[in-house]
């Protein structure tokens, strides 16, 4: 693939090809480069600027010079050289410059940044970066923004669009987060092993939030939101690889992959949501489900008490295993939800358990569980509570009550597709003879 000077026969379409190669490299390498530069310079802005410059140079030089054998190492070297130049100009960071220069000299000369050593020698600093970006002393929204900007290279404008806030607000959030890291001295390191059980759940929560923000696709720019899903998956993959002793990371990865495998079947041609029951299962991505199954099996094989992501992934696996909706193993799903409810105490989990019980033992049994939830009041104002009751009542043939519950749910629903779905069901029960 690599060509030099006059012998560049593929140059006709090279720009397009190279554009794709650079885009791939961006996804693969951005986080690795910023993580290494932050480690060496302790300067987050410098790291981002130099990573950005390296990719800009790649777009300019690769079509002309050919794509280097190890694009990641090339980018890392160019970014590091850029950092050395900038620091030299500011002249106050002599020690850092020397450290960087020693590392750079070992690998390459500046004009031809093709590294002389295997890039596996470059330590993967992304784990430090993940733990720092997801530090509990930062507000959740700051952790999410910082993770997306620094680890995946999503631009401030893109993150702002994905989370429906003005770009200036998002920029300020990122600046604030970096200031706090510096001023309060949030360390740039992986917590020691004994602290991992306390810190890993916080990191997984950030990744799952990013994924869900993309998966829900209830508002905002669809393309960017799908991109959020992919980025969350990639980061979780990195985490699962770098922390092989943490089965919950694999569990979360499996859960994300099971969900993403159903993405194509979740929305119909009109952009309306299709329930799991009504989805065209031929459109599920079986290859991706296979990968998810493997990760889940690996997580469970660790022999620890399964955490919430593994249990949720196991539930997703039950759905994935059913060739048709009628073949779903609802008793097993109900048991898994029971396990999850005991673990989390979450009323939303309890609502899902009611749905599973209604499928396993009939809608009357589900309705009994719902009554307890309604009396408890924790889900007041949540549209899925009356929507679920409406569904149970419809299946019990209590159509009058079902219609009233659908109306209640439609009034609470947040998005147009949700309201359209509920109103369609409402029309259905109204048209049936009582």
């Amino acid at each position: 693939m690599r060509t030099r000077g006059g012998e560049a026969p593929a140059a006709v379409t090279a720009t397009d090809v190279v554009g794709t190669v650079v885009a791939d490299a961006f996804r693969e390498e951005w986080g690795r480069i910023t993580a290494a530069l932050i480690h060496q310079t302790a300067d987050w802005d410098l790291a981002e600027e130099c990573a950005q410059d390296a990719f800009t140079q790649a777009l300019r030089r690769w079509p002309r010079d050919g794509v280097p054998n190890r694009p990641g190492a090339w980018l890392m070297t160019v970014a590091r050289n850029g950092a050395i130049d900038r620091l030299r100009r500011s002249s106050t960071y002599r020690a850092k410059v020397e450290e960087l220069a020693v590392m750079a000299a070992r690998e390459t000369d500046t004009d031809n940044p093709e590294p002389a050593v295997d890039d596996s020698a470059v330590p993967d600093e992304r784990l430090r970066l993940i733990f720092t970006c997801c530090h509990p002393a930062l507000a959740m929204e700051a952790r999410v923004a910082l993770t997306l900007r620094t680890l995946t290279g999503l631009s401030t404008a893109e993150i702002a669009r994905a989370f429906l806030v003005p770009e200036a607000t998002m920029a300020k959030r990122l600046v604030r987060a970096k200031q706090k890291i510096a001023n309060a001295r949030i360390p740039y390191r992986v917590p020691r092993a004994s602290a991992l059980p306390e810190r890993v759940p916080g990191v997984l929560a950030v990744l799952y939030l990013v994924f869900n923000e993309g998966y829900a696709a209830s508002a905002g720019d669809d393309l960017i939101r799908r991109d959020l899903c992919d980025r969350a998956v990639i980061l979780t993959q990195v985490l699962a690889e770098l922390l092989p002793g943490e089965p919950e990371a694999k569990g979360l990865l499996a859960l994300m992959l099971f969900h993403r495998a159903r993405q194509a079947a979740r929305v119909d041609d009109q952009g309306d949501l299709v329930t799991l029951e009504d989805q065209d299962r031929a459109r599920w991505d079986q290859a991706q489900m296979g990968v998810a199954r493997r990760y889940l099996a690996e997580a469970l094989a660790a022999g620890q008490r399964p955490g919430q992501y593994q249990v949720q992934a196991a539930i997703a696996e039950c759905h994935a295993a059913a060739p048709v909706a009628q073949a779903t193993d609802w008793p097993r799903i109900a048991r898994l939800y029971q396990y999850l409810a005991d673990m989390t105490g979450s009323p939303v989990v309890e609502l899902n358990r009611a749905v599973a019980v209604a499928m396993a033992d009939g809608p009357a049994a589900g309705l009994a569980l719902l009554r307890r939830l309604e009396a408890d009041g924790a889900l007041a104002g949540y549209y899925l509570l009356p929507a679920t009751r409406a569904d149970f009542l419809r299946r019990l043939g209590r159509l009058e009550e079902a219609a009233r519950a659908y109306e209640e749910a439609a009034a609470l629903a947040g998005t147009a597709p949700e309201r359209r779905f509920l109103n369609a069901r409402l029309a259905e029960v109204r048209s049936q003879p009582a």
Partner: protein
Amino acid sequence: MRYMLIHAADPDLAGLWDDEAQATFSDWVEETIRTRVNLQGSRVRPSADATTVKIRGGELIITDGPYAETKEQVAGYDLLECASLDEAVRWAGRHPSSWTGAIEVRALPEWAPAEPLPAPADGKVRYMMLVCTDPAVDPREFDRVEPVDPWVEESDGKGIRLYGSELEPPGSARTVRVRKKQAIVTDGPFAETKEQIAGFDVLECDDLDEAIEVARRHPMARLGLLEVRPFWPFGAD
């Protein structure tokens, strides 16, 4: 007697800190040190750099931000040796942070130490740890609070805790605000929040994680809140 002046800045009045205020501040520091009234003191970073630590149901909960959302925010402290509360209040009225916010004057118990802080250690960062009450915790629980001595001994032994003391109850505090050159002295603390400062410690740590580790071991982590706020290093912007 020793008194803590808690400086609280009002963001709306920040513009009033002018050259005159700066000169008055320099004179105040110079005079209180020369007369041996001032034992120690520092600015602290703004509340956006604060982290609050507590333990509930056995679980460590770390949050971004100060112990309470107040309009005026803790911005620094001084520890004074004075003959009486009135004298400490007079010093507070002469400090220009009473123009741009408020100064709460709190007595330390009789037995509080009178040491100055040692010179900063290289590569370490200092934190002010505010020990606060949590209104959500039933006051009857306080009968069950463990003694703080083992924590003090442990933290001193590691060289992490440089100073610290309980404060006399907020009911005996005075708060000084100077508006249009007139000192307005009120009874009670600067903030009318249910959360109240009950004591403070000065910690010197490698990083925030170490400060959090020390804070979580404090007996009040289970019953109150511990706010960890970095010092504003002298001369830094």
